[in-house]
């Protein structure tokens, strides 16, 4: 946690096998009442549609409750996936957790 914000640090590869853990963590935070969640993808080496789907689903849930889900996603393969799918315009993306929280 950083102030009002919960931070989810994701590491490694996010795919069909590992993405459910990300979903569980975000769901757990939402159920605990956290509506401002930063998802830190800085140490993610791979992300496919399964991961994207979870992020989109979480964003929609949080928006319904006036919450927020900024991403920490520096330039690289993960940001490229967001760009290819057009989702870089949907998620606020930042270069660091501090930047995301301070925005």
């Amino acid at each position, binding site marked *: 946690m950083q102030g009002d914000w919960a931070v989810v640090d994701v590491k490694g*590869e996010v*795919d*069909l*096998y590992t993405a459910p853990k990300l979903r569980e963590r975000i769901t757990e935070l939402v159920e605990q009442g956290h509506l401002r969640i930063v998802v830190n993808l800085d140490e993610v080496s*791979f992300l*496919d*549609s*399964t991961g*994207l*789907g979870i992020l*989109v*689903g979480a964003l929609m849930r949080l928006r319904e409750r006036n919450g927020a889900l900024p991403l920490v996603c520096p330039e690289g*393969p993960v940001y*490229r*996936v967001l760009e*290819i*799918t057009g989702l870089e315009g949907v998620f606020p993306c930042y270069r660091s957790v501090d930047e995301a929280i301070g925005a």
Partner: protein
Amino acid sequence: MSELDTFAIELPPEAAQVGAARLFAASLARHFGCDDEAVEDLKLAVSEACASAIRAREEGSASGPLRVAASREGDRLVFEVGGTALPPRGVASAGAPGSGDSGQQLVVALGEDLISSLFPDAEVTRNPGGGTDIRLTLLIPGESG
């Protein structure tokens, strides 16, 4: 005379194996000199195709192990993933049939979008044994004449 080399891996059709399929594809592509961007594109497309193949088996439209094959065909490296749920080229996706799950449909649509964007020339054809096969082609650097 052109060489024809074929490599293949068969894995249990489980989510835990998709990473191994990516590693196989990436290792081969690097072995043949493909650059980092091409390798990353391939990993993504293979990951999407394998996820689709696992969905096809869960839905009953395909069966058998997850198979990723790669063939060197002259100056090209052709990867094939068999028995997926991807729509044949020219056919719009129906999403996840019968699931009524908008989240699943979103993932399916995103996956198909990613493959089409990264490999616009990908061939998706019906597999007589069920589902569809996808072929992804990479140029081998330095081989074209």
